[in-house]
């Protein structure tokens, strides 16, 4: 059952609210070092699955195992980029990036500032942007700052909740390439929930399609596109999907 190179292994997971079962006996393995994209209908439980994986939602049954090598690390196991950024509104951008560092390691303010500025630069922002408060940041900048914060401690696994939603196509493309670069340089395992077909095509090694609380299809984008599950078919062969990506490509 257990794959040797798995970063996260989910077995027979059930998550629900009241009488409503959202995730129904789902099993999934995220391999170390890969970028996995999760697609699914709106309200179909993608975020619920991700929140359960992070540990924000209780599970009814089943198991979520993080690679013991990662689990043993004292800090920086997981980094999470929430959909709206979830920056702490009382702190400016730099303090937001510094927060995980300040909480976990005892270093001087000077070094903290330098590290935070470096992280901001890595995500394509300037030191001056660090002075801004979350309310003063645009949507794209918020996501960048949130990414810098998620990466502050160089986590082993990065969770992204619709990283490109609300961004214009240029910004979304830049964000995609940013994630690819960071994933390569920091050797991250990335798990992303997305609706963005071009993100799926450009940065995901594997795609998992969630339908009816289960993984309906899993594999490379082409494998998933070839699936005969009705929902997956309509997702990847709908008008919008065709417009972006002709099957010949």
């Amino acid at each position: 059952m257990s794959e040797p190179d798995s970063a996260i292994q989910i077995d027979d997971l059930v998550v629900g609210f009241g009488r409503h079962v959202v995730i129904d006996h789902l099993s999934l393995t995220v391999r170390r070092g890969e970028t996995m994209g999760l697609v699914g209908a709106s309200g179909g439980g993608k975020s619920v699955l991700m929140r359960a994986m992070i540990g924000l939602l209780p599970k009814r049954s089943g198991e979520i195992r993080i690679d013991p090598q990662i689990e043993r690390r004292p800090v920086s196991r997981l980094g999470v980029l929430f959909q709206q950024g979830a920056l702490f509104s009382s702190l400016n951008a730099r303090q937001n990036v510094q927060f995980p560092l300040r909480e976990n390691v005892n270093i001087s303010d000077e070094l903290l500032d330098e590290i935070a500025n470096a992280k901001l630069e890595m995500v394509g922002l300037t030191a001056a942007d660090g002075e801004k408060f979350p309310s003063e940041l645009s949507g794209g900048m918020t996501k960048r700052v949130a990414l810098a914060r998620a990466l502050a401690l160089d986590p082993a696994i990065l969770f992204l909740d619709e990283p490109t939603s609300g961004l214009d196509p240029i910004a979304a493309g830049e964000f995609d390439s940013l994630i690819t670069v960071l994933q390569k340089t920091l050797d991250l395992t990335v798990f992303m929930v997305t609706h963005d077909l071009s993100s799926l095509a450009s940065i995901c090694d594997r795609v998992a399609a969630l339908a009816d609380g289960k993984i309906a299809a899993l594999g490379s984008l082409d494998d998933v596109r070839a699936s005969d599950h009705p929902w997956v078919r309509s997702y990847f062969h709908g008008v919008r999907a065709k417009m972006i990506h002709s099957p010949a490509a």
Partner: protein
Amino acid sequence: MERLLREAELRLHPASGGELDLTAVTALDTSGAWVLEKLTRESAGGAAVEVHGLTTSLSGLLAQAHGLNRRPSDIEPRKAWPQVQIERAADYMASMSRDVVAFLHLLGAVSASLGLIMLRPARLRLTSTVYQLFRVGWQAIPIMLLITFLIGAIIAQQGIFHFRRFGAESYVVDMVGILVLREIGVLIVAIMVAGRSGSAYTAEIGSMKMREEIDALITMERDPIEVLIVPRVLALIIALPILAFLGSLAALYGGGLVAWLYGGMSPAIFIARLREAVSVTHFEVGLIKAPFMALVIGIVAAVEGLRVKGSAESLGRQTTASVVKSIFLVIVIDGIFAVFFASIGM
């Protein structure tokens, strides 16, 4: 439009069906199309109603309307009034018991967190606590002084006005002194703090909940209770007794001023009588209550804040609930303490 529809229905009614000549129709909106569709669907009674004369673009809209509202309604049928009322009452009782459980749960969590802080004081968020103390303590002083000053003055004025008839004006000092130190000073300040700081706490914690900031904290393996709630509750517990003390002083000052200007009692006599009338016990009775009231205000504010769901409406509702519940509980606590102090003879 509905009147026109009814007229048309009457004319069509013979079960033979009929024809609708819509040649004269030049414009049609979705609502109009639906009314036409309804006419052909219902009033025909099985017999076909033929529609002709529409331009192609308008008949497209009619064709669209043809497919609408066909699914059986999935709205549950409305329940009878008594049943609704009984269910509402049951929900209300259930929500009250949930309130108690949530309150005790958070009280326990905050106590546990405070216990850990006592063992390892470095865990305390000092910066945050001092900042909250500044907000709920220092910044609240002017408004608290003003309100309690006015309350003291009003009590004294009313006392003098009514006691004058019995020639017992001098007893107004006893009344102001005892009332302010034992009850009014701390009660007014606690109510003001619930409205001013409790609501702010709920709104802050609630909007952090809405913006997933609390989830972000959890993913960074920080305990939101330790980071967000303990500093706020602790700041209230420190600030409220101080504010109640200052408020009591302001109320006595207001009372003394009115006794002098309105009742003609010189300050020297007022102070001398005050010294006879009140003892340190009265003052203690008032101040002992303050930290407990602060704890309740803080916990209720946090419970309600953490209950905020995604919408702005929910934030507003929980903020209101926070203020109403904490003021209610402050008064209940005051009553419990009154019984307690009476029975131990304080």
